[in-house]
């Protein structure tokens, strides 16, 4: 019995290669482009942050160095008024004055005085 043999002249060439041309640029150029975009972004970010955190950004400066002093004086006056009122009340109720803290410093009271009758 005759065996299967290759055809005369051999088999035809099997096409396994794809001859499609590579699309776009070389990968190196994409890399360069990405870094340029990132550099631009960091450049803008740098300037934005410098404006926001730098000495020129003066939202906090407005409050702290200029106006807060005035508000602080007002607040202190109110605290002192309450302090003297508390002392007078204590004198009236207990007849004596005693220090709560072992210190001469002004301490903001933890508990506030409220009238006994809250609603009318």
């Amino acid at each position, binding site marked *: 019995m005759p065996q299967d043999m290759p055809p005369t002249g051999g088999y035809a060439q099997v096409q396994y290669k794809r001859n499609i041309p590579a699309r776009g640029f070389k990968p190196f150029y994409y890399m360069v482009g990405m870094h340029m975009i990132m550099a631009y972004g960091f450049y803008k970010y740098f*300037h*934005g942050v410098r*404006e*926001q955190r*730098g*000495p*020129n*950004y*003066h*939202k906090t*400066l*407005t*409050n702290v*160095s*200029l*106006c807060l*002093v*005035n*508000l*602080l*004086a*007002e607040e*202190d*006056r109110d*605290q*002192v*008024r*309450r*302090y*003297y*009122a508390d002392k*007078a009340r204590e004198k009236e109720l207990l007849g004596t004055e005693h220090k709560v803290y072992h*210190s*001469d*410093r*002004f301490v903001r009271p933890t508990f*506030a*005085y*409220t*009238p006994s*009758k*809250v*609603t*009318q």
Partner: protein
Amino acid sequence: MAQRDPQFNQHVLVDTTPMPDHIPKVEEVGATSAYLTSAAYFIGDRCKAFNDDFMKCKDEGKGRGEIECLKEGRKVTRCAASVIKDINTHCLDQFKAHADCLENNNHYLFECRKAEMSLNTCIFDKLGLKKTIPGAPENQVPVHLRPKQKYAQYPGPQY
């Protein structure tokens, strides 16, 4: 329900005892935050000496500054009130415009450079007070004199 009048009782929870007589009275400034923010640099310009004096007194008060620096505090308040009064007499329209702009823009000064510019020129002409940002670098244009503001909603020049 909507017609019902609101009933507050916070006022009875506040200690309303007046200041004792041995402490001189002073009228508070009484301006709201937008007006204070708007006038802050002019208050700082005129009252710098009083403010520094007050802060120094509090710093050296060793924790009793609240009680011992009342005199300096009154000076600070009187000076701030005088600035507000002067601005009200001379530049009321610009002052109102700037404060309204601040109210509408979350108190961001960078959104209101146009109104601020007219207020600044008015105050400089009439009162001679100048806005300077303390601690700003010398070699740059100060941020309030730049027409373009980076963080403003409108990025172009505001005036």
